[in-house]
């Protein structure tokens, strides 16, 4: 444990501030709540929004997991894990089903999440309207007034120009027929997991000082036109070369012989399957 610091690094006042923002975010699904983002001994852009949510929620009995684009072992994941461990001492896991609190960058885990788990997603850019409107005061009003025509216009333009919406990750969603929200740069594959799920999803943007949430059993629709329905990445006829999994999000790799192979993006899911298959 880090000496001379409060449990979970932040002082209790700072935690309460974040929790208040979280409560508001849960009460208004998809609405971006401003919060007083603190300085952390981790560079901004390295998940400081997510970390502050984590630090404000984590308790001594929690079991914590960190994943970075599906991997538990990336530099980013390891540094967040060691930081949280050093200032809380809570139990860590790579097993999604064992975790009570999961912080993730750019993925929702493959294993179905439960009602007793919380997923914290790191958000680089929270404002879906930023590309059409630079002024914060105006985007705030646009959200309040459901003035989303410019947002739809961006998608329309994609389709007219290239025949489809070319957004791989961070595909915008509309929450409970109201707020349009960016789900953080998760693949489109993960978008449907936000809809009517039993888990609490929390989103934290450290640089932009915003928190938002998808509480359990919230309607979340990926934006789509009648004649151009939303589609996830087409990986139907592919399987993981390690564990054989299908219907999961697969990374494309090249084998030594130059052949394309596919592998589970969620490494702990893959490992668990391999262990089970091996037994």
């Amino acid at each position, binding site marked *: 444990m880090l000496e001379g610091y409060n449990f979970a690094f932040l002082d209790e006042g700072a935690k309460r501030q974040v929790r208040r923002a979280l409560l508001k975010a849960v009460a208004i699904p998809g609405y971006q709540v401003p919060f007083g983002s603190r300085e952390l001994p981790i560079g901004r852009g390295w998940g400081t929004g997510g970390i502050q949510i984590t630090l404000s929620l984590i308790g001594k009995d929690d079991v914590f997991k960190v994943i970075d684009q599906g991997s538990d072992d990336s530099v980013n994941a390891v540094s967040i894990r060691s930081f949280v461990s050093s200032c809380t001492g809570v139990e860590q896991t790579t097993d999604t089903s064992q975790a009570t609190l999961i912080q993730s960058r750019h993925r929702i885990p493959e294993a179905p999440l439960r009602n007793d788990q919380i997923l914290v997603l790191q958000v680089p850019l929270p404002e879906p309207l930023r590309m059409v409107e630079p002024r914060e005061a105006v985007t705030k009003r646009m959200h309040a007034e459901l003035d989303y025509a410019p947002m739809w216009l961006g998608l329309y333009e994609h389709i007219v120009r290239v025949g489809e919406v070319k957004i791989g990750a961070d595909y915008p969603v509309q929450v409970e027929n109201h707020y349009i929200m960016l789900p953080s740069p998760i693949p489109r594959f993960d978008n449907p997991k936000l809809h009517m799920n039993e888990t609490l999803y929390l989103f934290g943007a450290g640089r932009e000082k915003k928190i938002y949430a998808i509480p359990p059993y919230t309607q979340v629709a990926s934006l789509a036109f009648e*004649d151009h329905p939303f589609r996830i990445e087409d990986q139907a006829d592919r399987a993981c070369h390690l564990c054989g999994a299908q219907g999961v999000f697969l990374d494309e790799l090249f084998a030594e012989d130059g052949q394309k192979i596919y592998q589970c993006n969620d490494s702990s899911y893959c490992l668990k399957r391999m262990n089970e298959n091996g037994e």
Partner: protein
Amino acid sequence: MENKPALSLSNLSVRYGRGCTFCEASDNELQGNRCPHCGSIWAVRNVSLQVYPGEILGVVGESGSGKSTLVQALYMDVEPVSGDYRLNCYQDGAANVFKVSLPQRKMVRHLMLGMVYQNPHMGLRMGFSVGANVAEKLIAAGSRNVQEMTRRTAELLAHMEVPLDRVKEPPKHFSGGMQQRVQIAKAVANNPPMLFLDEITTGLDLSVQARVLDLVRRIQQELGITMLIVSHDLAVIRMLASRTLVMLGGRVIESGLTDQILEDPQHPFTQILVHSLLS
């Protein structure tokens, strides 16, 4: 001409600034449109007018007389201090449009009104294609079918004589006259019964001006849209409007048949306007 106005406005006032007890008393004299006590600008003060179905009503006045503010209030770009605004197409004129809920006002704006701004930058998104700009009005009215919108967009642009091979270009590549044609296509996209036109030919070459005005006359005849057209140029008003209001310092100082005003102007300011036109 039918008896019931398509648009009926009573006692519209629009103020820039905070106002005070002096200028809020409507019979106190201001310095032009400026309150001598608090410095607020009363851009429009107690203006009443009716526009009858199928007619083109002209509003003429020098720069700063409140013409743009008047149409922007009618298009609900700016909030009035007070006023009663009825549209025959909305609840048969039973509701004051200024007083209905925001979603209702948006609905009226998107479905029943069209606007062509003096400055194309106000009416068009310069970063999007011309086609998408027209489609925005369709999207705002709730359309979510790309194929239908693309078809309608092409139809409208062809009607306005915008070359169809340029649909995917942004309006910033277009000439001023062509940008106004795009704005008109956008404004009439949902077949609104009412169209507002603000100085749509100001700054254009004379020959271009004439062609844009021809277009306005043509769509007025073909679509039977009721129009309110605003210009500092009495020559433009004379070409299009059967009836005319003259504004000065935020107030209407004279109104009547355009021919009558041209032949026998009453107010000294109107006399100057008419004389400068004839000389």
